[in-house]
């Protein structure tokens, strides 16, 4: 039996790497992928907690997170296509109208 803290450590590492990728990548599609990576890390923590507490609610939560992530991917990629058509670039540093 694998200790539950191993799964949580892996989840923390993946979430941290997702944050690092979110901060460092310059391509808007890759930034969006790092958000998906963070969602996956959170899902792993949910499943691990569901296992350790022997409750199903964590699995139901993961189900809803996956559904919301799919919807988010559809809308987000549509936004990315619109940005690419309007600005002719995928670099976030050139999409800076709202930048302070």
């Amino acid at each position, binding site marked *: 039996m694998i200790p539950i803290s191993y799964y949580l*450590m892996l989840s923390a590492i993946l979430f941290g790497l997702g944050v690092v990728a979110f901060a460092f990548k*310059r*391509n808007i*599609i890759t930034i969006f*992928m790092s958000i998906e990576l963070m969602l996956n890390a959170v899902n*792993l923590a949910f499943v691990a907690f569901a296992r350790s507490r022997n409750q199903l609610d964590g*699995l139901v939560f993961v189900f809803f997170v996956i559904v919301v992530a799919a919807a988010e991917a559809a809308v987000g990629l549509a936004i990315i296509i619109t940005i690419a058509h309007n600005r002719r670039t995928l670099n976030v540093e050139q999409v800076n109208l709202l930048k302070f």
Partner: protein
Amino acid sequence: MSLPLILFFVLAVMAVAGALLLILAREPIHSALALVLVMVSLAVLYLLLGAEFIAAVQIIVYAGAVMVLFVFVIMLLNAGTEDRTHISKIATWVGIPLGFFLMIEIAHIFWHARMTSAMASGAGVPYDAASTHDLSMALFQQYLFPFEATSILILIALLGALVLAKKDE
């Protein structure tokens, strides 16, 4: 060292390597494939945790549908090599330490969280390895309203994506 533990470490190394590859790759398509690697190894980890329905959904929806959407958009927009720009001084001296501090902090909290009380109070629906039946019962009875709300959400997302992506007349 038992077999599940070895399997866990192999999968964990695969997942972390995929995440690192996502950060280090210059081409967006390589990042996408690295993310598929992370998702597949997480799916096998879910199997290891006894959540085989979630593992199947992870493969079908995440590694299948969502990542195909990503790859499709990368190909459609012809996203080439990402140009490295110099990051600002604030990002170097504040951002990087804070990012690693966040990772260490989360890991610290998780490592020191004692799960004994959580293990003892195993209330709710108990589940064993064959939990798909219990999961569907919970989903369609206890969580029926959120389930229906998600279908509305999917419909709205579909309409939103259509409205955003269609060409203006």
